[in-house]
């Protein structure tokens, strides 16, 4: 286990395509539901406790060594909106490319071969963390943090918000990110006994709806 590997994986500059996705933020800005620092905080906390928790559970389970293809099915079942699903697979493909070059491993090569169309990003994240020698809690933390940090960064670009406000927000909810990561890791530790049904399945219908709406727009900055 090496702590610095976690920093490499969690670094926003890790070249896995995330910068082109807003996690629903562009659609939320378009509908004016996010327009300032306060509404940004509400959006990010909402995403953390729903999509973020679900992603963290999948990531922890993959990092614990559970079958990524089984987890990919579980991710599909937890992602009803086709546009959101497509974005998750696309990000998964891109992360897997970066991960194979960064931490070469037969497990990751096999995963790429078995699902050329891509595996959900949180599952790839967990499998990558495992290859990098990281623990399930690390993978869960990464997924939970990214679920809030992705849209926060996008909001800075979309609204011209003060970047220091966005960063302060992420620091303020760090405790919640840890709580979500721990709950997700606990759930993942029950998969051996109880199956993937033990994993969180929190969803945010509004994120699904605006995700679909975004995919239909012709003028947009972000892919999702």
């Amino acid at each position: 286990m090496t702590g610095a590997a976690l920093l490499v994986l969690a670094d926003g500059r890790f070249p896995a395509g995330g910068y082109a996705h807003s996690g629903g933020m562009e659609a939320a800005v378009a509908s004016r539901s996010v327009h300032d620092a306060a509404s940004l905080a509400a959006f990010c906390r909402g995403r953390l406790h729903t999509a973020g928790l679900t992603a963290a559970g999948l990531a922890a389970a993959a990092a614990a060594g559970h079958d990524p293809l089984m987890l990919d099915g579980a991710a599909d079942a937890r992602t009803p909106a086709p546009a959101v699903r497509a974005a998750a697979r696309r990000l998964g493909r891109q992360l897997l490319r970066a991960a194979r070059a960064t931490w070469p491993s037969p497990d990751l090569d096999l995963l790429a071969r078995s699902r050329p169309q891509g595996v959900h990003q949180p599952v790839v994240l967990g499998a990558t963390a495992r290859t990098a020698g990281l623990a399930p809690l690390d993978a869960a933390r990464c997924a939970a943090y990214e679920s809030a940090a992705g849209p926060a960064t996008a909001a800075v670009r979309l609204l011209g918000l003060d970047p220091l406000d966005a960063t302060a927000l992420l620091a303020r909810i760090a405790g919640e990110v840890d709580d979500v990561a721990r709950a997700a890791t606990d759930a993942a530790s029950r998969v051996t006994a109880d199956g993937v049904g033990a994993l969180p399945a929190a969803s945010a219908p509004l994120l699904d709806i605006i995700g679909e709406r975004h995919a239909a727009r012709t003028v947009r900055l972000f892919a999702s």
Partner: protein
Amino acid sequence: MHLDHSTTLPHHHSHSAEPVRPDGSRRALRVGLGGPVGSGKTAAVAALCRTLRDRLSIAVVTNDIYTREDAEFLRREAVLSPERIAAVETGACPHTAIRDDISANLEAVEQLERTLRPLDLILVESGGDNLTATFSRGLVDTQVFVIDVASGDDIPRKGGPGITTADLLVVNKTDLAPHVGADLDTMAADARRQRGPLPVAFISLATTGGIGPVADWLTERLTAWHARGTA
């Protein structure tokens, strides 16, 4: 867990960088077209396609900043059949998409290679950015930087990575030079000072056959690429 694998770096950083694939077939030459917004990148892509499409199998990736306008322009102009044109979103960071995090562009390129095999040439047009935006060598094999005379004849003097290091510098819209008071001789001298022996083409895409010098340069690069692939 292999935290300690050999210290040599993996060669397959993009998993598709070698000119010849394991099965012996050659992948397409990947050419980046960068430069500021409005300098004529899309016009150059369209003209290249029209000039070369009868001889070569071509595909295009566009990196529009916030619309799919470039891709749609190329489709509307029917320079290639629609399945040969792919658009990539750049999250308000056009330079990131071609340099710091090339994953979405690489995906688009590989997808085109897979569905349109065999391809000879893939043109990747950047979303248009400042003078520092260049393509990663992991994404393209060679790159063209397109500026125009109407944005100021001091641009070559200012330099920057695009001007100084691109494999070909294109100075477009020479037809406008008399109207905007641009001094082409000064631009040429400045470009030579910045670029040493690297080539510069002064063109006007508003003129019939204006793309000629760029098409010729590209054809030479393709010949060199093929020689490399069979060596």
